[in-house]
């Protein structure tokens, strides 16, 4: 039945070259953009659904820096703050760290397993943390132990001695010591000549940035038992369940009341002040989420507009051909035949458009690969796009085609 219709449909289309071409072109362009956009959405969603390896609920981060205190003066101030915060109602435990997952920037260094290695085995994130950070974050230790309080050393960033102990992520452990346990083995960090001993291995901990530049190292994290006295430290606060908001509300004032000579910024990333971890995550992935939203919106509107265009032109064709439809009906064509005719017509146009669109989509994908850091468009996205547009075409044609099928045979007798 369908096959029989193709010939007359093609013949008719020759008389509507412009409209046919326009619908085909629109389907082709829409396909090109939609399947690339869908791929971008998928990539961004994958990127932002990576896990941090910590318990993200009931976790508060408070960036605080001293305005004047420096060097040795900083350590007692930090300890006083920790004490103050621990006494707050609703607070379970508090740690201090330079660097935490998704913070936005931080410190990266190369690591080696021999002191004289020319090239690092891996580049890693360095979180300078006290003995509370591991438990406050809720990171899972799968081997070894946590730092002890007496192992934490205060120092400024220009006097970094190699730490005696390190806790590293499983991913980093497997990278530097493949096929063997890294526990108890030495690691040289940041060109240090003295070794540090790996005393603990974490199941997972995400690095300090969600930016794509750090994707390759986002699973490589080292905890060092240090308090950096000249960098933007943050207090990491584990609150009791449901107490996050209450603690967040008073954290700032409490700290200022304890000591006025500090800055608690209100920015993002490096300039983060009081931020729940949900906010940290939201800020870290703002670009990814934003792109996903833009691309979704563009896809949705594009499909609607393309559908509207098809409805518009098909309706026009139906109204133009009322007389011919009437003649066909008078000559014995069923309603079903008329409906099938218009659906076939759309299917043929869509097919041509989709075939052109595949070429355009691949071209656009190549251009995106050349100019933006993305991968080639995978086949499934192309197929989804093709199916989507063919279905859309049929759905958009349905209403005008049904109207056409209701044209009475009497129309044949009316003048044009």
């Amino acid at each position: 039945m369908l096959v029989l219709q193709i010939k007359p449909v093609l013949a008719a289309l020759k008389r509507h070259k412009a409209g046919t071409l326009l619908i085909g072109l629109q389907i082709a362009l829409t396909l090109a953009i939609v399947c690339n956009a869908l791929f971008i959405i998928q990539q961004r969603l994958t990127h932002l659904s990576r896990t941090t390896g910590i318990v993200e609920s009931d976790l508060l981060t408070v960036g605080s820096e001293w305005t004047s205190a420096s060097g040795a003066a900083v350590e007692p101030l930090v300890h006083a703050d920790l004490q103050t915060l621990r006494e707050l109602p609703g607070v379970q435990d508090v740690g201090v760290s330079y660097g935490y997952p998704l913070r936005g920037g931080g410190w990266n260094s190369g690591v080696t397993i021999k002191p004289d290695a020319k090239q690092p085995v891996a580049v890693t994130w360095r979180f300078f943390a006290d003995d509370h950070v591991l438990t406050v974050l809720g990171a899972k230790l799968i081997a070894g132990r946590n730092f002890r309080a007496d192992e934490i050393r205060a120092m400024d960033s220009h006097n970094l001695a190699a730490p005696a102990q390190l806790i590293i992520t499983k991913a980093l452990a497997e990278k530097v010591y493949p096929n063997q346990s890294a526990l108890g083995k030495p690691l040289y960090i940041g060109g240090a000549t003295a070794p540090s001993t790996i005393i603990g291995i974490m199941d997972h901990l995400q690095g300090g940035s969600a930016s794509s530049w750090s994707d390759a190292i986002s699973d490589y994290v080292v905890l060092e038992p240090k308090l950096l006295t000249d960098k933007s430290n943050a207090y990491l606060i584990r609150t009791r369940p449901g107490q996050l908001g209450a603690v967040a509300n008073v954290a700032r004032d409490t700290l200022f009341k304890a000591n006025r000579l500090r800055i608690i910024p209100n920015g993002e990333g490096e300039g983060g002040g009081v931020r729940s971890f949900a906010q940290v995550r939201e800020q870290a992935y703002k670009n990814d989420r934003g792109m996903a939203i833009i691309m979704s919106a563009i896809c949705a509107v594009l499909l609607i507009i393309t559908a509207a265009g098809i409805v518009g032109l098909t309706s026009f064709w139906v109204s133009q051909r009322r007389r011919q439809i009437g003649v066909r009906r008078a000559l014995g064509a069923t309603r079903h035949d008329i409906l099938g005719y218009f659906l076939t017509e759309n299917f043929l146009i869509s097919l041509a458009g989709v075939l052109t669109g595949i070429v355009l989509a691949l071209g656009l994908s190549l251009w995106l690969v050349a100019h933006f850091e993305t991968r080639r468009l995978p086949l499934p996205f192309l197929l989804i796009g093709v199916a989507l547009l063919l279905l859309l075409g049929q759905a958009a044609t349905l209403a005008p085609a049904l109207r056409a099928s209701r044209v009475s045979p009497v129309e044949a007798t009316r003048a044009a």
Partner: protein
Amino acid sequence: MFAYYFELGLRSLRRSPVLTGLMIITIAFGVAASMTMYSVFRAVSNNPIPQKSSQLYAVQIDNFGPRNNQHGEPPDELDYIDAMALLKAHKALRQAALYPVKLSVISDDASQLPIRPATYAVSNNAFAMFDIPFLYGGGWGAAEDDNRASVVVIGRALNDRLFHGANSVGREINLSGHNYRIVGVMDSWDPKPLFFDLASNGGFADAIELFIPMSRAVDLQLITTGSTDCVDENYGTGWDAFLRSGCSWVVYWAELPNKADADAYRQYLHDYAAEQQRVGRYAWAPNVRLRDVAQWLDYEHVVPPESKLSFYLSLGFLAICLVNTVGLLLAKFMRRAAEIGVRRALGASRRTVYAQFLMEGATIGLAGGVLGLLLTGVGVWSVGLIFDAQIARLATLDVSLVALTLLVAVLAALLAAFYPTWRAAQVAAEVQLR
């Protein structure tokens, strides 16, 4: 005549409201999407110092060597030794070494919390080089740099806040526990992107409110809040060891008024690096770069890929909307073949048919533009949901964007109307009169 066609256009719009509405919405969406993305793109690709962008150059010297540099490119910043050597040599018309630092303004009033404005440590040429405008006083001179003086230039907003806008030159302020004498108050100055230091803040952070001499900042051992890149982090301990290390952390700019100056300076940099190789500091051939503002912005990818990508895709979106509009206009115009035939038979020339239908297209475009403007407003307002707050606040619906939105809408509609109009004008009179 145009008024008449405009009226005809309006009347026709009302005749087939669904088709007309579709076209208006299509154009509105296409224009709004592209204009919203353009407002962001325009903000991030702005030339921050147009009068001097071809005279200011970022200086790069490869102190990392072919094994550690980035695909052959020298690091973005200089190490302290090179920066000081270049500063001392004074081979450009003006040159400045600089880096971002953290300083807090501490009020004597104990009820006031400290504030931390964006601060840069700079050498004295920076003020003239970057055309920094002054409300009171001015920058400091070479003597203050040499004496490592505690002087400061403050921003207008900070001056308003601390001194209620009065001339504060000569007064002292406490910055992180040290007193500084104010030598100048800047007028409002906030180049976006902050071209001379893109590495540390991406170029769209808060306006700079404090400048202190870099020599003073180094004495105070103020670390950079920007990036520090070291091939070997094991440079020993202490501040002096850090200064002597090969770590790159000093931003360096030169002002070279013409091409000959730039060529000469490039040669000088090459010779300097060659000399460093000769004395054994570098074990590789000279590898230097001199990039003007435009080249530097491009090299540093100041336009976020998200902004670029969404702008280009929104243009593709607009193109599809146009194709759609061509189709709908075609349907709309050809429905009126009978009317055209009558008009032609009554003596209307092709030209009048052209004029009437193009005018109708323009009317649709204008209507689409007005709706598009509303949508652009919504779009620009919601940019903050999608882009960084620092970038989003730069995207504004100003007069030029309003004009552009309407213009693009009308032009797009006219463009879309050309083919349908041509087809309409081809309608022969006699055929329709049968």
